[in-house]
């Protein structure tokens, strides 16, 4: 099981803050995960329809979409940040 957390409009569209998911064995990278999640329901499809804009952190550090997710404790998906 992998903990996935969502923020901002990704969270709103998916309709939950976080969940524990059993990922299929062929979901090996961040890009794989985003593609797989899009098939999990309308909310996911809406949130992730433009996967290139989705920012990702694994274990609380920024990663790019080629990053392997094996061993990830927590994967966070969110829009481009607007802090400061």
């Amino acid at each position, binding site marked *: 099981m992998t903990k996935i*957390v969502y*923020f*901002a*409009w990704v*969270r709103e569209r998916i309709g939950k803050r976080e969940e524990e998911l059993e990922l299929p064995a062929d979901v090996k990278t961040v890009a794989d995960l985003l593609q797989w999640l899009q098939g999990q329901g309308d909310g996911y499809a809406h949130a992730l329809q433009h996967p290139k804009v989705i920012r990702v*952190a694994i274990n*609380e*550090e*920024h990663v790019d979409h080629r990053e392997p997710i094996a061993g990830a404790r*927590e994967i*966070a998906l*969110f*829009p*481009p*940040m*607007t*802090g*400061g």
Partner: protein
Amino acid sequence: MSLKPTVRIQPDDFDLAAEVAALTNGRPGVGAVVTFTGLCRDEGGILAALELEHYPGMAKAEIARIANEAMNRWPLTGLTAIHRYGRIKPGENIVLVVAASTHRQAAFEAASFLMDYLKSRAPFWKKEHNADGSQGDWVEAKDSDEDAARRWAK
């Protein structure tokens, strides 16, 4: 003199004068202090408040990473970054950066660098609440902020 940056993520307001004093009192080698305060704008009256969402586990660690990089790149005597979250009204403070150094150029550059990276790397998101009670939008990231961060790439 501590060379560890101070980073705080908090719902409450901060005290500019107190944060500057913390980097200067009893440190007579400090010659220059630059502060940046970011405030919530009312956008011409249409905005009632901003709701700042953040990623608690990551926000402090990520800002500390950026602050440590600034300490490594410039000869600073102190560096503080405070970022608020929660509901913030127009005119209220959102973010504070304080950079202290022997000389002014280092303080200016480090504060500017830290702000540029905070804008595009710190896990915060702003949602608008409109003054007319209608549902507001999530603030969109600006390409200019990405560009501003990129100009510091070595």
